[in-house]
């Protein structure tokens, strides 16, 4: 017989064993679950505004020392001689950036090829002096949501393709270079865990990133507006303009001021309009808007200093249709290229509209674009070339057309099924 003391010990021992075995059941479950676990990763959180900027209040951001005053402002090229565009392969997963002489586009040269998420070719912006090309690239592994919000990367290279490097990530939309080409603005949407209003599930952040050093400045953060559309810098890069629409559908233009780091209301846009395009003038003093309200479409021009909005064209609109206007600024900001798709059997018209005259007057057509399926996608800063897209052709080709010329010159493609898109212009 065992002494009572031994009974107690064995009971404790067996008890411990049973407890241990019981306790190891969840451990075994954990191990079983670990068969699924390949690696442990921490979701890369978006840096909060306070991590990016030196001050905590987004509307009181002080300019960083790297954000120097623009020293020399380069104007758009007086005359252009090359066009920059991209060509995506038929799978839409890889795009090549091409530079083509306008006199002979077939002798184009590739400067870079980039892989990206399917269906998201890079968005490009050429620096004002033409020396750099910035590209918003959506990486192949981005989700459909992050591709639309904050999953992009900003890459910069010389216009000859040299020194391609990434200067920012977690970007959503590429905006404008500063006039001196020292930095460029971008925006992104950051999901909110507990939105104050269900219609605003994202915080909009507008950022500026320096070309050298990559330091970033938060210009604006907003969790209450229904939507925020960055517009661009004024001529001296002292202010950055943004359009904002509130939950009642009212638009206004806000300005971030470099000197104070604060954001202030600049102008209200009258009415509760659906504004489908915004375009800031090259000198940053006027905003061109394609707006609809009810059964009317209109082109509106907002003077940011006078805080006055003028209607420069209008057209009736059926409920099923969209605005018939497509419009671009000239490089000197004195004229607009306006296409009116026409209605009631009228063909489309494409004309130059001089806005500095009083009253403004429409000039003779820039190019023959009577077919409504041809829509301009770009106008060279020297007003000599128009790029038109045939939206009814299955492969959406782009054509170059010289002002006053009838000839449509297709932008070359390696394969007829490839997609092409305009990035910009290079010249003297």
């Amino acid at each position: 017989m065992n002494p009572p003391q031994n009974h107690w010990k064995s009971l404790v021992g067996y008890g411990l064993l049973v407890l241990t075995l019981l306790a190891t059941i969840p451990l075994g479950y954990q191990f079983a679950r670990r068969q699924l676990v390949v690696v442990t990763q921490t979701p890369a959180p978006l840096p909060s505004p306070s991590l990016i900027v030196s001050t905590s209040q987004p509307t009181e951001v002080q300019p960083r020392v790297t954000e120097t005053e623009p020293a020399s402002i380069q104007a758009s090229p007086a005359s252009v001689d090359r066009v920059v565009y991209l060509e995506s392969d038929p799978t839409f997963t890889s795009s090549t950036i091409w530079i083509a002489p306008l006199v002979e586009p077939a002798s184009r040269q590739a400067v870079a090829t980039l892989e990206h998420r399917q269906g998201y070719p890079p968005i490009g912006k050429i620096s004002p002096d033409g020396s750099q090309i910035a590209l918003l690239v959506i990486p192949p592994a981005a989700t459909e949501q992050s591709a639309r919000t904050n999953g992009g990367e900003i890459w910069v290279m010389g216009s000859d393709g040299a020194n391609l490097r990434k200067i920012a990530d977690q970007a959503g939309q590429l905006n404008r270079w500063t006039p001196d080409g020292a930095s460029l603005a971008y925006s992104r949407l950051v999901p909110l865990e507990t939105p104050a209003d269900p219609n605003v599930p994202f915080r909009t952040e507008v950022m500026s990133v320096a070309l050298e050093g990559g330091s970033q400045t938060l210009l604006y953060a907003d969790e209450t507006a229904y939507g925020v559309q960055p517009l661009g810098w004024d001529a001296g890069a002292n202010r950055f303009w943004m359009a904002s629409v509130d939950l009642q559908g009212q638009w206004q233009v806000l300005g971030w001021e470099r000197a104070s780091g604060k954001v202030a209301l600049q102008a209200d846009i009258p009415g509760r309009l659906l504004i489908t395009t915004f375009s800031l003038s090259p000198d940053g003093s006027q905003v061109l808007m394609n707006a609809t309200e009810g059964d009317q479409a209109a082109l509106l021009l907002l003077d940011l200093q006078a805080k006055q909005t003028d209607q420069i064209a209008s057209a009736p609109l059926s409920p099923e249709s969209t605005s018939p206007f497509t419009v671009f600024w000239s490089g000197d900001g004195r004229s607009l290229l306006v296409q009116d798709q026409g209605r009631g059997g009228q063909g489309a018209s494409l004309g130059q509209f001089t806005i500095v005259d009083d009253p403004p007057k429409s000039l003779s057509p820039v190019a023959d674009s009577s077919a409504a399926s041809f829509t301009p996608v770009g106008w060279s800063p020297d007003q000599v070339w128009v790029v038109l897209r045939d939206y009814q052709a299955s492969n959406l080709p782009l054509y170059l057309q010289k002002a006053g010329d009838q000839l449509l010159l297709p932008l070359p493609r390696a394969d007829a099924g490839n997609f092409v898109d305009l990035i910009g212009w290079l010249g003297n």
Partner: protein
Amino acid sequence: MLRTANLVVGGIAALMLLAYLLVSSPVQTCQAAATCPNWAGTGRQRLPSELIPMFNEAGLNQMGGEGPSLPQINAGYPVTTPTSPYVPCILLKAVGFTESGWKQYRADWGQTGETVVSFDFGYGIMQITSGMTTCPPPTTFDPSRVATSSRYNIGTGALFLIGKWNSVPPYIGENNPRIVEDWYFATWAYNGWGWVNNPNNSIRNASRPTFNGTQPRSWYPYQELVWGYAANPPKPYDGTPAWQAVAMTLPPRSQITNPPPLHLDRPTPYHTDCYLFITPTNPLYFPLVVR
């Protein structure tokens, strides 16, 4: 002898207890190291012909234990009534293709590979992100099965779509989940509600033609991609269309205000899917249906 045995047993127990304590403390928990598990596994990429029944079963809530439990779906406008779970099969298929091209694994069709996981932790065919990195894990679905089961992943997509249908305020027509066009706002919200997918957002191409799978996706709000794929079924394998084309109708862009109105008329023509209607005497509540 017994005393020795008792000591051995006690020692083993103590060692096991010590081992448990040592092993259990660093087990992956989100709280422990502010990390969350990556649920990715390996598996065979199902052929489209194998996936199609899964989409249909998920839409019709016929997954049994092979999918998450689907909640009731609200139907009717202005008064809503909870009804049995349902998602139009064409919508699930088109959303799945928009998200991942129907790929659960990084592998060719029929081959084995690792789970498709985006860098921001979207998993599998329906690119499930919500709940995949939260701690503790969600109670409405099992993240590990989202990562390793195509069927479960599709079912979780149905779960999220129903969640969006039930929670996003605007309604279309009579708010009938059997009408595909009525899912416009829920589909929008599946990707991201608000300005990001408003069809009048100025970052989208205002001149865009109807999406047919050949244009840049960045020109379009998410829901127009889904509508476009539904009408232009891709041929992911063997040259066979993945589904029969359904030319769903979009509401007029001009009616989608900032933010959208609480109710829009149903655009016509409208479409049903998975079910065939027979003489709906009361079109509100799909009275007699035949599969």
